């Protein structure tokens, strides 16, 4: 294994390889930052370019792209409230409020640093678990998926804050949105009202583009001014504050990276769920925060960003263990390997260890490289938040709508983006949380699917959920996460009461 790692480093050590990596990383950043495009599109578009390359060169280029997209996506999530790719959606919850407070630099600094560290931890974890990777992938079966999804859905209660009723209403609507379209268990199409566009369900990316980006532009148009409500000049030092905040909140970053790696290792869940679970866990772990979550807590940026980057390493675990892609990008990446005459699966690690480690090194270096680029450019990027709405609104709206269209070259997706834009705007206007709505959309379908599959496996015996170790553990964790904030609040109240009595 060590020899293969050295070979991987040598492969990347040539000027040509570094150029390829930098090019891949730059494309990844750009495709990540532009809403709707994303890593899968970038990797797919670059496929023809790799035809004339050696396999390891193609791997370096692709590795560069894959490690950089979510870092790029974090920038637009923070600055424009527009998740570049779906896994960045959770970053908007606290990233954008920070930008509004004139702390965009800090948020970008934290997001980029968390991305790099998350990416590196994900890759290190991948290498560390290679001997036991099969066991890890096999740990999770439908009952565990269900419990994991329930755990994530419970965050709705916590994320709603004092707007529990509104939170529950939006969550129910979110669940209903998630149920539209083709359902894999029965192969039937539901709630499509005969509209072909809805047959495949409401696609997450156009919906998020509408819900976050365009709705925010409508909101800005009503208010006027600029994104940042802070009138003082942008302080560059805040970027370094963001970098430092990650090290200060290292446990948040580590938990996020753990989520990313682990969720990445489970095929079919993906970076979006990883980022949301990481965010909701952070909210639940911290019931009495200095700054409320959703109002610009830096930990709300670190948690999802470390998770969605760590996922890149994690999603290679099932790829190497069983040849199963752990994410959409990995699926396209496997396609690239096949095009180059390499059969993925058992044989990949047995016969092409050098290529596997070339990818490992490329992912690590690209994660760091992308972060450095973002940190260097951050001071210019934050100027976006100072631009007048007259320039910003048309530009962002056009880019967002093109992004919604470009994903599947489907005009209907633009309509979806518009509909969600108005839903999002009314939610802002009437103070209904978008966080709970989004959590429900993201987790709703996996909750339903895993419940249904669990019932099929167990012949409708609910005992399947409480007779399996991990499932029980997750259930206990759910109960704890619901009880913990109340318990801590009570303790705090009791302490305060004692202090007051003492006075």
């Amino acid at each position, binding site marked *: 294994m060590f020899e293969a790692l050295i070979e991987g480093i040598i492969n990347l050590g040539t000027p040509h390889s570094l150029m390829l990596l930098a090019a891949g990383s730059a494309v990844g950043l750009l495709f990540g930052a532009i809403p709707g495009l994303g890593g899968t599109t970038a990797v797919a578009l670059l496929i023809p370019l790799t035809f004339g390359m050696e396999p390891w060169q193609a791997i370096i280029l692709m590795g560069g792209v894959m490690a950089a997209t979510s870092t790029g996506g974090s920038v637009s999530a923070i600055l424009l409230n527009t998740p570049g790719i779906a896994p960045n959606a959770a970053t908007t919850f606290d990233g954008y409020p920070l930008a509004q407070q004139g702390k965009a630099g800090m948020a970008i600094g934290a997001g980029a640093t968390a991305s790099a560290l998350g990416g590196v931890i994900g890759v290190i974890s991948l290498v560390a678990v290679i001997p036991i990777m099969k066991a890890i992938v096999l740990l999770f079966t439908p009952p565990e998926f269900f419990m994991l999804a329930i755990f994530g859905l419970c965050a709705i209660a916590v994320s709603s804050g004092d707007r529990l009723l509104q939170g529950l209403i939006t969550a129910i609507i979110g669940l209903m949105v998630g149920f539209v379209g083709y359902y894999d268990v029965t192969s039937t199409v539901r709630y499509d009202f005969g509209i072909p566009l809805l047959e495949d369900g409401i696609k997450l990316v156009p919906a998020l583009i509408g819900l976050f980006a365009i709705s925010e532009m409508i909101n800005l148009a009503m208010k006027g001014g600029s994104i940042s409500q802070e009138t003082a000049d942008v302080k560059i030092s805040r970027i370094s504050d963001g970098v430092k905040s990650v090290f200060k909140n290292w446990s948040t970053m580590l938990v996020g990276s753990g989520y990313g790696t682990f969720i990445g290792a489970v095929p*079919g869940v993906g970076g979006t769920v990883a980022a949301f679970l990481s965010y909701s866990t952070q909210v639940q772990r911290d019931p009495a925060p200095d700054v409320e979550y959703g109002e610009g807590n830096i930990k709300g940026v670190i948690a999802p960003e470390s998770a969605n980057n760590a996922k890149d390493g994690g999603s290679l675990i099932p790829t190497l263990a069983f040849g199963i892609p752990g994410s959409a990008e990995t699926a396209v990446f496997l396609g690239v390997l096949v095009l180059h005459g390499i059969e993925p699966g058992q*044989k990949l690690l047995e016969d092409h260890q050098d290529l596997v480690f070339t990818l490992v090194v490329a992912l690590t270096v690209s994660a760091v490289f992308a972060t450095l680029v973002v940190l260097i450019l951050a001071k210019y990027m934050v100027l976006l938040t100072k631009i007048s709405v007259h320039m910003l609104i048309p530009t962002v709206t056009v880019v967002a709508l093109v992004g919604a269209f470009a994903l599947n070259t489907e005009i209907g997706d633009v309509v979806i983006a518009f509909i969600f834009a108005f839903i999002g705007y009314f939610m802002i206007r009437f103070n209904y949380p978008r966080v709970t709505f989004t959590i429900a959309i993201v987790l709703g379908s996996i909750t339903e699917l895993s419940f249904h599959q669990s019932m099929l496996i167990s012949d409708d015996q609910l005992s399947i959920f409480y007779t399996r170790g991990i499932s029980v553990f997750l259930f206990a964790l759910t109960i704890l996460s619901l009880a913990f904030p109340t318990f801590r609040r009570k303790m705090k109240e009791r302490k305060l009461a004692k202090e007051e009595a003492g006075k």
Partner: protein
Amino acid sequence: MIGKITTSVLAVGAAAMLASSPAMADYPRKKITFLIAYGPGGGFDTITRKLGPYLKKYLGGKVTIVAKNLPGGRGKKAAQFLAKRKANGSHILMFNMPGHAMPNIIGEKAGYDVRKIDWLGRVAQFRYVIVTSASKGKYKNIQEVLKSKSQIKIPITGPGTTGYLASAILWNALGVQPKYITGYKSSSRYALGVIRGDGDLTILAKGSFKKYISSKKKKRAAFKDLKPILEITNGKSEFGVPTTGEMGQKDLSILGGDRIVGTTPGTPKAIKDQLATALYKAVTDPEFVAWGNKVGRPVAPLNAKDATKLVGELFSYYTQYKDLLAASNKKTR
């Protein structure tokens, strides 16, 4: 007489006009779009992208072949799109047969009819093998499955998908009434379901199964995760297991998948012939053949005539099971 002459003149004139129409004169045009009915990264995506440059080579090298993913409606969207294009050879699609034919067979609204598509030739085919978990499998061999008194559980994609349909026909023929655990998005996901014990066994394309075989171990020791218990073939088993042919089920050997390229119905014969000839040459190009063998996806070329005949045979074969397929397609819980 005058009428006959007029008819002949008109016919010759029409033929001349067709022959000299711009659509044919400058064919192949600057761009041919090679549609992919599924998202990037899958088997159809890979083989289409790999084939593109070879097709370009045999179309004279000047035309650009653009691979375009048009996923949706489980493959239907791309077929509908192709059916609605101008019949000028500007768009081609690799169909997933019999999957693409199912809506037509069971009389569902599809927006295309595979019987009317202009077929250009077959690129590849796959056949199935039945696999079980090597470590957690309840059944060691197919005889144990057939004798089992408890219900066999099969993780699979949803009703109506190619794998589900092949399963339904196979187990119906073997007299087994399994329970399907549906909802897995792809064959690699349900294969994982079998490995971790969600169900007892499943059906996998041989090419997909091969990725679970270790190259370092020989024969049976190579089956660490999944092991084969039955192969659907009339020939000798590649993996040393019983075959459906040996069980007297010769008809089942048709079960599998064929990747057949077609273009918009009504495409002028000259264009169709040019495309079909180039496609056949591309599929039989030694370099493309070698690639297919290397990645476990051997090519199975068929010319336009034989491919058209095959589509007809597949249609007739699956139409026999129309009721079974319609029932499985509507099955809900």
